[in-house]
């Protein structure tokens, strides 16, 4: 079984986001970037499946500018076998990314495609579902547990009401929740070894995919600030404020 894992480079989750004064976006210059957190879970799960003997190859792919290759390199350092970097300038919408991934799937013929359930930059939560639509494959979104059984997966999904379990036939798409596993750290020797693993570079425009934007970002602004609150001295004052001032209890 071959697993393709898509990873995205985003602003690190610990960075306090600042909106650009001209309203064109958020500040990314000199800001720490990392792999989108649930994409780390996707890589971890693929590597674990390979280590259990149920997969033969893990291929990491990213779509983005030159520096996005760091995320593929990181995936190689934690156990992916080789990488693919589809180079593109500018920001692509999830629809465009899923069309690019479709082309790569046609070429690589993986049995499974994993990725994070959502990117923490645009918070779209679309790419996995769109890719499975384009391929007409089953989709298991928000996965918190994956059991590989021959040519099937049993996947536990996190839904609002609790947990749902589905069984999907391979080939399939899985989008990963943060609770799926605990991503490992790359050891120094593995980071060194990863430098020798191959990353194939593909120019997006060579794939013959229409990636033109359909959405216009008119402006980006700061969310309204909450007015400053107060500190209360003790519990009695807190209850009194909630009762008489805020009138919520």
């Amino acid at each position, binding site marked *: 079984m071959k697993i393709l894992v898509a990873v995205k480079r985003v602003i690190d989750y610990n960075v306090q986001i600042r909106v650009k004064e001209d309203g064109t976006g958020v500040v990314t210059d000199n800001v720490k970037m990392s792999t989108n957190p649930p994409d780390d879970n996707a890589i971890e799960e693929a590597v674990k499946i390979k280590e259990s003997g149920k997969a033969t190859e893990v291929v990491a792919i990213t779509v983005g500018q030159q520096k996005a290759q760091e995320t593929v390199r990181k995936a190689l350092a934690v156990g992916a076998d080789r990488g693919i970097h589809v180079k593109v300038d500018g920001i692509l919408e999830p629809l465009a990314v899923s069309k690019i991934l479709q082309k790569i799937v046609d070429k690589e013929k993986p049995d499974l495609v994993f990725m994070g359930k959502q990117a923490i930059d645009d918070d779209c*939560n679309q790419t996995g*579902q769109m*890719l499975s639509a384009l391929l007409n494959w089953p989709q298991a*979104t928000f996965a918190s547990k994956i059991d590989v059984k021959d040519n099937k997966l049993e996947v536990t999904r996190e839904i609002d*009401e609790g947990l749902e379990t589905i069984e999907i*036939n391979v080939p399939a798409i899985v989008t990963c929740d943060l609770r799926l596993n605990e991503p490992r750290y790359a050891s120094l020797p593995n980071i060194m070894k990863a430098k020798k693993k191959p990353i194939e570079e593909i120019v997006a425009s060579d794939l013959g995919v229409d990636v033109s934007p359909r*959405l216009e970002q008119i402006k980006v602004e700061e969310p309204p600030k909450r007015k400053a609150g107060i500190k209360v001295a003790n519990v009695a004052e807190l209850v009194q404020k909630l009762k008489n001032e805020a009138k919520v*209890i």
Partner: protein
Amino acid sequence: MAVLLIAEHNNKDLRPFTLNAATAASQIDPDVHAVIIGQNTAEATKQLSELPLVKKVLSVEAAHYENFTAENFTPVIVKLAENYSHIVCSANTFGKNLMPRIAAHLDTSQVSDIIKVISPDTFLRPIYAGNAFATIKSNDAKKCVTIRPTSFDPCETTGGSAPIEKIDAGEEFSNTKFVKREEIKSDRPELGTARIVVSGGRGMQSGDNFKLITEIADKLGAAIGASRAAVDAGYISNDHQVGQTGKVVVPDLYIAIGISGAIQHLAGMKESKVIVAINKDGEAPIFSVADYGLEADLFEAVPQFMEELNKLNTIQK
């Protein structure tokens, strides 16, 4: 062309966020039609037809719709979409799972999780876990939009009498099989719609200590929430998680106990009307969004809070 609302239900009743999604749909275009796909949905279909905002109901029933599998729902909605300018549903796990699959089939770029309808093609949506708001204009002919339920008021539920049209079912997608659903049953209000939410974080130190939270929640008729740290530590199940990767809640009162206020938690609760934080670390980021902050050891403060609540003659529920 009208707007097509995808109703969410449990085959018996409409699920509450359908009412918020109907409000958002009507702000895009007052001509709202609603499709309900399921099995034995007569009662839920009737409820849908009684929403005054809904002008027409399309009902699709078959056994393979019983478990709301996106792979089965998609072809039906894609076919219906010919007659609509917009497809709308909630941005909860139901809509998040379903809508992108529809959008890809329609070759349209979805606008996810909107919090405001600015015009029929322009929407406001949070990005970066709510740390920025983006105004997005869609240039696609057909628009797929998911709405953040807590940003729109639920619509009226009575007084309407929309005609119900039966639509033929589509084929079953054979590569996805439903196995089971483990719903967490509770007498408490649902976290996403509760008027009061009492949440615990890593500061609770154990699952047992969550009984302090439970007592307060019982007293106030509140839902119980938790930070990701508390869920990851195994203190409480994941369906209680509030935050960027959990549920977004907008209650009248949010009480954060032993929660430091990581960015991703704040994203899920900072729109609450009144926020209370009880934390022994006076520098904790949660205090930056709290209307009332109490810097105290929760193991002393929470039992006192319970005593004070017990002294009150009346409590709004």
